[in-house]
């Protein structure tokens, strides 16, 4: 039922910071995570886009880097923070392993690990460093989460789908607690060249911080990024029994497929409209009640136009919209989770994050874009995502009650 699942902990490693609150503070200060690619030489690798939002792992993480893929290490680090933030200690009696599950998405899994291996002798750890369910699995192993184990891999909607999956496990009672999130480390030559070839990436190489510009008329593609986020979702009753104050409530989720084309969504945005309407119905929330939208807003010409079309169809009067990828870049399957963290923080603090670089509004993206950080009464917020394959996800959060 709507209202039965609450958020009690947040964790994130993003291009803006090594924790959820560091990332939030940088976001609210309009600090960009974008810069030249340093992980390898993009010119040598024949990339057209030479820019990215790179994340930095803390010096110490709960796992050994050479034993897990980078994307799994990012997820475990974010989960460690989220569990502590929720006031949990996996050694406590409150932590009933069989009732704690994981739902951690990744669009691609360990692509850099695949590329590193192509010329080499194959390590016995190779497969378990790249499989796209291994972030979810490593979190379950490190923290003893032996309940339902899920790993959405629905491209750039996967992070939001992971929230939806986790919410359903808690609603059904198949878990009391779910570690829900997404993780991606895509910064390798093929990771970038693949999107480059599709003309999906910005080539504003001389101005990395100005390259991601959702809904701006001069946008030319997304800035690729890496990172992870994990939220602790918990049944309201379980949180109350622990004496924990929730950060936000997960009210409902929706998903849909366009069923048209792998990369080109339909002009009328029917699939995304259906998805958002399903989320609002599931949450039992009237569209007029939505106060803020954390949009998918990747900064691609067609994607942003498609999303604006959907929002204007769902809402008689579209609420304020933020594209946080303007500062974090696009972390693919992690983005829906990172933006769910930002949405929970928006509700917690009553502050709307900014959209950077929105300088020339695009008439084809006629939505009210939040360009400066601002305080606001926010009771209901929507997080939207869409991915290649024509897959859509939306999740509705409300403030703690």
């Amino acid at each position, binding site marked *: 039922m709507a209202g039965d699942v609450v958020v009690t902990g947040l964790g994130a490693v993003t291009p803006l910071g090594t924790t959820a609150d560091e990332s939030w503070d940088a976001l609210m200060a309009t600090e960009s995570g974008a810069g030249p690619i340093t992980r390898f030489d993009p010119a040598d690798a024949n990339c*057209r886009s030479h820019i990215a939002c790179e994340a930095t792992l803390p010096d110490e993480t709960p796992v050994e880097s050479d034993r897990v893929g980078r994307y799994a290490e990012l997820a475990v680090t974010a989960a460690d923070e989220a569990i502590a933030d929720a006031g949990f200690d996996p050694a406590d009696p409150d932590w009933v392993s069989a009732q704690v599950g994981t739902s951690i998405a990744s669009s691609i899994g360990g692509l850099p690990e695949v590329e590193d291996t192509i010329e080499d002798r194959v390590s016995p750890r190779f497969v378990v460093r790249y499989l796209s369910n291994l972030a979810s699995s490593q979190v379950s192993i490190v923290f003893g989460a032996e309940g339902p184990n899920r790993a959405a891999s629905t491209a750039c909607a996967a992070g939001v789908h992971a929230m939806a999956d986790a919410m359903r496990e808690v609603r059904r009672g198949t878990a009391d607690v779910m570690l829900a999130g997404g993780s991606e480390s895509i910064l390798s030559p093929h990771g970038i060249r693949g999107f480059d*070839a*599709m*003309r999906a990436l910005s080539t504003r190489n001389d101005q990395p911080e100005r390259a991601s510009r959702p809904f701006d008329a001069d946008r*030319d*593609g997304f800035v690729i990024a890496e990172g992870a986020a994990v939220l602790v979702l918990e049944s309201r009753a379980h949180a109350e029994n622990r004496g924990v104050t929730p950060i936000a409530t997960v009210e409902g989720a929706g998903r849909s497929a366009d069923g048209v*084309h*792998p*990369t*080109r969504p339909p002009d009328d945005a029917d699939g995304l409209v259906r998805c958002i309407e399903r989320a609002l119905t599931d949450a039992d929330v009237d569209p007029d009640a939505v106060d803020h939208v954390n949009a998918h807003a990747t900064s691609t*010409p*067609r994607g942003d136009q498609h999303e604006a079309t959907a929002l204007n169809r769902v809402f008689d009067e579209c609420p304020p919209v933020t594209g946080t990828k303007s500062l974090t870049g696009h972390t693919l399957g992690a983005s829906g989770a990172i933006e769910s963290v930002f949405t929970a923080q928006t509700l917690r603090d009553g502050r709307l994050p900014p959209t950077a670089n929105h300088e020339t509004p695009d008439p084809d993206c006629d939505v009210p874009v939040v360009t400066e950080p601002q305080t606001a009464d926010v009771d209901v917020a929507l997080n939207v995502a869409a991915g290649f394959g024509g897959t859509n996800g939306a999740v509705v959060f409300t403030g703690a009650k």
Partner: protein
Amino acid sequence: MQSTAADQIESIISNRLHVEESGFDDETVITGEKLDAESLDIVEIAEAIDGELGVYLTVDDIEEMQTVGDLKSFVASELEGN
């Protein structure tokens, strides 16, 4: 130079879309019935043009192209510009 580039473009279209070169001409609409190219086909053609002729087409450039002739003219003008 221009005719060579035009020939190469015809060959790229033929190879990528699996149609005989005699099956289309400059008036043929790229997304029309004869070629039936969809968006990723067109980007594949653009990538092949970049690889073989060194002319990069942006998404905006691609969206402005209607016919095979439009594509040839654009590439020819870019090559002249160089």
